[in-house]
């Protein structure tokens, strides 16, 4: 199986394991989990900067948290199964996109959605087409269930090679398009994606095009548009979204897909929506109605992102044109070397992303203040002089 997002020095898995020790209290367990990092030599801040998993540094908005407290302030609601609450969330999502509840399926993060799509629409004789390099969830799951993967190299600008992917689509079960793309942070315009969809559907009418728009809310390039309308109109197009990024809910595990009712029904039949937890549902339901917070969060990210891009540019390092909450930077040295040096100074950046692990690193965008602190560490690690920094 391909390496996963979480295959990191400090991971969800480590955290869960730590929590599991002898039924210790949650707060105590959390302190234990941090302890391993505090032991790292030279860790200046007491808590490391978590710039490695493309999370939201602020978490959910106030309105969403208030809704959570109101809903779960007493114990009883958490004791009930979530059936009707899920219907309410589907309705809220549908309304946001001018769709109907039958166009919506939810899952535990986009992870579950992407897996359901690979499960339902690929097979040992109907491969997955995916970029090399893109978000690995689909390819990793395809490998697990015995679906062959056609890995299509990026173009010279580190963008997904839409032409080559379309060429490879004939007979495929699913073509996976992460737009903007993780980990390269690059975007294809709405026109380019529309032409790609047409081309795939013409070349291979039975192929499902799975478009993952996890980072949609962080895009500032005006050539971008969501492909949700295409998904609603065409049974062969699915758009996946998540509450894990701009909505700040990575820990609450809520993702969704929009599509034609037939297609949604197939996804629903595999994973169903009953895996969602009531806290995630309540927060998602409030968060999707809080457009002002979403916009504020996007603006906050744009400013912190620009600061970081500018810092690297001044220091002589170029990043791709990021349309996400992370950068893919050419640091002209192995990511591992940079990562370990940063970690020793209390800043966590992402794991290796072959085939670019000898030159590029992925850095998630925290708050502006966090990025200023991180830049000081990057400066030391890269040997950047004070005037450049």
């Amino acid at each position, binding site marked *: 199986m391909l390496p996963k997002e979480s295959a990191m020095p400090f991971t969800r898995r480590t955290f869960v394991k730590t929590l599991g020790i002898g039924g210790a209290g949650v707060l105590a367990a959390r302190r234990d989990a941090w302890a391993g990092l505090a032991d790292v030599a030279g860790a200046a801040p007491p808590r490391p900067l978590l710039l490695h998993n493309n999370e939201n540094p602020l978490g959910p908005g106030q309105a969403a948290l208030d809704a959570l407290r109101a809903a779960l302030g007493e114990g009883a609601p958490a004791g009930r199964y979530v059936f009707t609450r899920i219907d309410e969330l589907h309705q809220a999502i549908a309304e946001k996109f001018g769709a109907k509840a039958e166009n919506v399926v939810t899952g535990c*993060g986009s992870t579950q959605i992407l897996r359901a799509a690979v499960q339902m629409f690929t097979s040992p004789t109907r491969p997955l087409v995916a970029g090399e390099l893109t978000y690995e969830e689909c390819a990793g799951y395809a490998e697990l269930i015995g679906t062959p993967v056609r890995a299509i190299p990026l173009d010279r600008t580190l963008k997904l090679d839409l032409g080559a992917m379309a060429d490879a689509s004939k007979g495929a079960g699913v073509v996976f398009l992460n737009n903007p793309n993780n980990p390269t942070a690059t975007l294809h315009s709405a026109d380019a994606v529309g032409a790609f969809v047409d081309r795939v559907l013409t070349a291979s009418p039975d192929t499902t095009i799975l478009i993952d728009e996890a980072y949609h809310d962080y895009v500032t390039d005006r050539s971008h548009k969501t492909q949700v309308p295409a998904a609603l109109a065409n049974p062969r197009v699915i758009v996946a979204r998540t509450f894990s990024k701009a909505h700040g809910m990575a820990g609450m595990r809520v993702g969704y897909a929009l599509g034609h009712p037939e297609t949604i029904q197939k996804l629903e039949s595999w994973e169903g929506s009953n895996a969602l937890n009531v806290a995630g549902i309540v927060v998602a339901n409030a968060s999707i109605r809080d457009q002002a917070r979403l916009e504020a969060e996007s603006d906050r990210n744009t400013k912190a992102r620009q600061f970081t891009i500018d810092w690297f540019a001044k220091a002589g390092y170029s990043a791709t044109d990021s349309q996400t909450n992370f950068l893919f930077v050419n640091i002209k040295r192995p990511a591992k070397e940079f990562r370990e040096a940063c970690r020793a100074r209390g800043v966590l950046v992402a794991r290796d992303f072959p085939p670019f692990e000898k030159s590029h690193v992925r850095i998630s965008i925290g708050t502006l203040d966090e990025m200023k602190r991180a830049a000081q560490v990057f400066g030391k690690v890269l040997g950047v002089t004070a005037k450049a920094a």
Partner: protein
Amino acid sequence: MAGLRVGYAIGQARTMEAFNRWAITFNQNSLSVAAAVASLADPAHIEAERARNTEVRAFTTGFFQKLGYRVLPSDTNFVLVELGRPAKEFREACAKEKVLVGRDFPPLEKTHARVSLGTLDEMKRANHVFTAILGK
């Protein structure tokens, strides 16, 4: 914690590794994990909950038996009652009175109904409804 969606399996490490390849644990959310960990550390609460349920179960079982219905011996938080009539008929009559009982369980749907246990106070209220329906 039904709404928090946490379950687990225990087995040999190799078997658990096979489960984990499907990344089942990554579906867990942070709040539920925190609540589950805290709950595991609170065995006194489980004891109290078990005692509460046992009392309510005895009360409810006794109630149906007094009305002349057989109740399968229950070691759970629900009872399966032999009503001698279709579950659907009973369920719909209860629903009109705002008491929800379990769905059909073929092949016993013509004779048995599953009734989950609430608090003692809730079961007392429910029994008024059951009496009115079954007394007909």
